[in-house]
């Protein structure tokens, strides 16, 4: 039975990471004005919300399985308090902080927004550094971290997360630049009228 928890922890961690990146990808594609594609926005948003919730569920399952695995060395203290896992402090710490941030992202968006739009957006965008922390956690303490397939999987997931984030950033910057130039044109035309 102990082996069951050990392998459940490893597999649920991998699946949670994949779901997290998928939720991030869906959310960035949904809001990516730079790509200009907004096919069925309700479908995108609904699936994005569901993937985020599912990723959170599998993350919780991963933590529970780690806790139940008696030889993992992870107890309640190590789960909730960073820098308390002896032997791999930073590796586990990244996972703990990512878990807290992810929980904040999920519970400020579901079932309904409890913050103002601006504050909600700031919290929601913390999901991007949270994904980076998850990758660091997997890279440092993943049981399969020496396997080539695992490293390749992490590289692919990193690419899937970074690419739409960069596209989104470019879209935001170009929109700001457009607004500034429109404002300049408008002010010049007003000056000309006067």
């Amino acid at each position, binding site marked *: 039975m*102990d*082996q069951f928890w*050990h*392998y*459940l922890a*490893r*597999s*649920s961690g*991998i*699946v949670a990471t*994949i*779901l997290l990146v*998928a939720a991030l990808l869906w959310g960035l594609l949904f809001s990516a004005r730079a790509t200009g594609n907004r096919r*069925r926005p*309700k*479908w*995108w948003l*609904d*699936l994005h919300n*569901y*993937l985020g919730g*599912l990723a959170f569920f*599998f993350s919780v399952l991963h933590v529970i399985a780690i806790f139940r*695995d*008696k*030889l*993992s*060395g992870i107890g309640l203290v190590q789960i909730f308090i960073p820098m308390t896992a*002896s*032997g*791999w402090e930073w*590796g586990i710490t990244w996972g703990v902080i990512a878990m807290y941030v992810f929980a904040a992202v999920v519970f400020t968006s579901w079932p309904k927004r409890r913050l103002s739009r601006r504050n909600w957006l700031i919290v929601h965008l913390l999901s991007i550094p949270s994904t980076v922390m998850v990758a660091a956690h997997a890279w440092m*303490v993943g*049981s*399969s971290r*020496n396997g080539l397939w695992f490293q390749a999987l992490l590289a692919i997931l990193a690419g899937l997360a970074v690419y739409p984030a960069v596209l989104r950033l470019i879209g935001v910057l170009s929109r700001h630049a457009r607004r500034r130039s429109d404002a300049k044109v408008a002010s010049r035309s007003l000056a000309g009228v006067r």
Partner: protein
Amino acid sequence: MATMTTRTDLSASRPPSSSATVSDDERAARIARLQASRGASGSAPSPGTATPAAPARRQHPAKGARALALFASVAATGVIGTGLAFADHLDASQTVSTGSALGATTTAAATGTGSTGIAATVGSTTATTAVAATAPATATPVTATTAPATATTAARTATTAAATATTAAAANAKYADGTFPGAVVTNRWGNVQVKVTITGGSITAVRTVQLPTDNKSVAINNRATPTLEAEAIAVQGANIDIVSGATYTSRGYATSLQSALDAAAVAVSAKAAA
């Protein structure tokens, strides 16, 4: 009153109808119908009007995709977990086979050269352990590929005799007193080597000589090795269970311990022959 005045004024501004004024009864009925259609609480709908519709349920446009994602996640968890368990079992099996061959070789070296010889022989075989093909413990070709060139002939000859002695010794489980180091078993995390202390023909202590040194392995091994030692002393042999979460360490521990016990058994045979 003001309301009634307003209503009267309004009705006066409208085109004349068949009845110039709206009676109180008609007004009351109209108000009741309006309230019923709006689903106001406490007011009974008048006959003939439709009951208010139930609040619309939340729609999920991506219902199919959600179900697919849930199914895929659960299935992936099961498949990945099973695959990891199978891969670990496969790796551990290969480690056991290779380690057993090492044990036979080490036993041969221990007969004539002592612990230094063991270290020298094992040090040269460690490099090839990872690529050595799985082979039976008594196979001479394994020795040919793993033993150093300078000791190949002697090791080849000694291995066959040592393999026979190993079998006999394992059956009788009699060990010479002393401390006997086991073979170095290499796994994906590093080297595992133990030494066994035998007093009065019984195993009294098993100490680790080498273990993987990365942080996570150290933490896992610190918890696993006391359990492994206790089991080895309890069963008085190397037939110990794998500690969950420390599969590689357990396998390497058992293999190295077995080779140490083989050396102890051979020492007994040598003394008896002498």
